[in-house]
């Protein structure tokens, strides 16, 4: 049946075209690469450049109209105290979230690669993938009800006689607040929860690439397991952590939904962008704000690429 089908097809125009393509790899490449490049290169990168261009326009102080001329006025505005505070707050949160994600993700990844049986490993893998792919909004919402003042955490704290601990945490200036769902602690917990799967998978990938022979060599040369971990496994898994942090850092930098739903109302970069382009109508400033994540992540990606993090993505 198969051969009959094949001989029947091998005549006519399609045949000619197919063979022409096979003989002209460049033409084939152009046909393959053209559509995705046009889409991402023109639609996406083009949009990013349009955004960059807008950040050099500025808002007229009196009329509130966007002046379409090159100037650095918007950037001067971006570097004022209040706006820098937003940037610092966001970067500090992103860094804290990234470190917490590494702390939670590393043991899970390590257990998956070095200790779990293959069945257990598959199960854990699924356990990481499901939250990663299930609805972002639903997962944020779950924390809204867990962290609420009348909610689950308060109840458990009461049962375990730990209310003093909860109150103590909330009494800490800056990061505390009236309840978990209106404090930086709450925002931090939700960020960590949402992004932690993005950290686990690259660390697993990196740990799996650590050659077994190196670990055995280290043991043969007399290192204790702890030293082998510190001197062999940990350094070799750095690319995985860097790859994971691309996501945790970048996604925290731009998120505006989590701090909107859980947290006090002090703005993060994403919320500032939203407010500037929406109610304030200051698109140049919104565009200038987005340059922060772009520049930070651009530098980060270049460093990450040098460190070989892309192989662990």
């Amino acid at each position: 049946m198969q051969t009959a089908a094949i001989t029947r097809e091998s005549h006519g125009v399609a045949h000619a075209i197919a063979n022409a393509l096979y003989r002209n790899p460049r033409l084939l490449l152009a046909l393959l690469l053209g559509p995705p490049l046009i889409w991402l290169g023109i639609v996406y990168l083009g949009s990013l450049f349009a955004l960059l261009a807008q950040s050099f326009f500025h808002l007229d102080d009196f009329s509130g109209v966007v002046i379409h001329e090159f100037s650095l006025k918007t950037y001067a505005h971006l570097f004022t105290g209040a706006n820098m505070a937003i940037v610092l707050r966001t970067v500090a949160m992103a860094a804290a979230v990234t470190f917490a994600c590494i702390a939670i993700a590393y043991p899970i990844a390590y257990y998956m690669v070095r200790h779990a049986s293959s069945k257990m490993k598959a199960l854990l893998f699924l356990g990481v993938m499901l939250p990663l792919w299930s609805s972002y909004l639903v997962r944020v919402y779950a924390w809204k009800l867990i962290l609420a003042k009348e909610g689950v955490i308060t109840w458990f704290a009461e049962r375990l006689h730990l209310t003093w601990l909860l109150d103590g945490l909330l009494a800490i200036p800056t990061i505390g607040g009236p309840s978990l769902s209106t404090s930086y602690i709450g925002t931090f917990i939700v960020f960590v929860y949402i992004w932690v799967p993005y950290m686990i998978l690259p660390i697993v990938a990196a740990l799996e690439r650590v050659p077994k022979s190196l670990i055995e060599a280290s043991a043969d040369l007399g290192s204790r397991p702890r030293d082998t971990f510190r001197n062999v496994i940990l350094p070799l898994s750095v690319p995985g952590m860097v790859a994971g942090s691309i996501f945790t850092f970048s996604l925290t930098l731009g998120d505006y939904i989590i701090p909107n739903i859980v947290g006090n109302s002090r703005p993060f970069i994403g919320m500032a962008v939203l407010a500037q382009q929406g109610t304030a109508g200051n698109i140049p400033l919104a565009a200038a704000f987005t340059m922060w994540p772009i520049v930070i992540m651009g530098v980060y990606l270049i460093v990450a690429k040098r460190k070989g993090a892309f192989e662990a993505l």
Partner: protein
Amino acid sequence: MSSGKSTPWALRLATFAGMLFLHLPLLFILLYAFSAEDKSFVFPIPEFTAKWFSVAWNDRPDIWPALALSVKVALIATLIALVLGSLAAAAVWRSKFFGRDSISLLLILPIALPGIITGIALRSAFNLAEISFSFWTIVVGHATFCVVVVYNNVLARFRRTAGNLIEASMDLGANGLQTLRHIVLPNIATALLAGGMLAFALSFDEVVVTTFTAGQQETLPIWMLGELMRPRQRPVTNVVAVFVIAITFIPIMLAFWLTRDTQDVAGSGK
């Protein structure tokens, strides 16, 4: 790789606690969908009821159009992503060309950069080009970040497919089209399906880019965001959330199952 060595109890505990942290919150969503109390999130839940399921089904006509729109957008965005993603994967796999290493970077950018940047960039581009916001602007936004998922899955499959299969096919007299149909497509079929499933799940859930590329249209996540900001009937939101979990659960499990005995695990590229 378990080699009979004993697992430190601290490691077991950390893994167990981490997995609990990842999964417990979703259970609470389910629990609160049955709460009779609709004004606050009081715990323990005072009274249980199943009435919110019928309320969501019968009395909230605002849910259905949002659901229909989400499904339509996700289907078309997935279709576009399947075509563009597999073309790019084929190009990167088959040939060497200038800038090949940058392709992955270009494709991953829409999900590596925060959604708000992709969203606002597309929005300002649509504004500059005087394109009015519609169903199709949402699709363009979604397809842009779905391409990489398909690309990753298909490229991983291509890399494991022996290139000499294709040469053998050609040597035996098949032309390019026949080789595509009888060798290449069967080989990448499950990777395409898995990539498509994940792209669908990704698009179905997306809220940030949609906020910026939609006009008056309301997808299901946009509807949900509205309910989170200005709650009307909290348990109804929970019912929809449970439904969303279920509807994304299925394609994810399928994708996982389709790529189960391979190394290119479907989701690692999100």
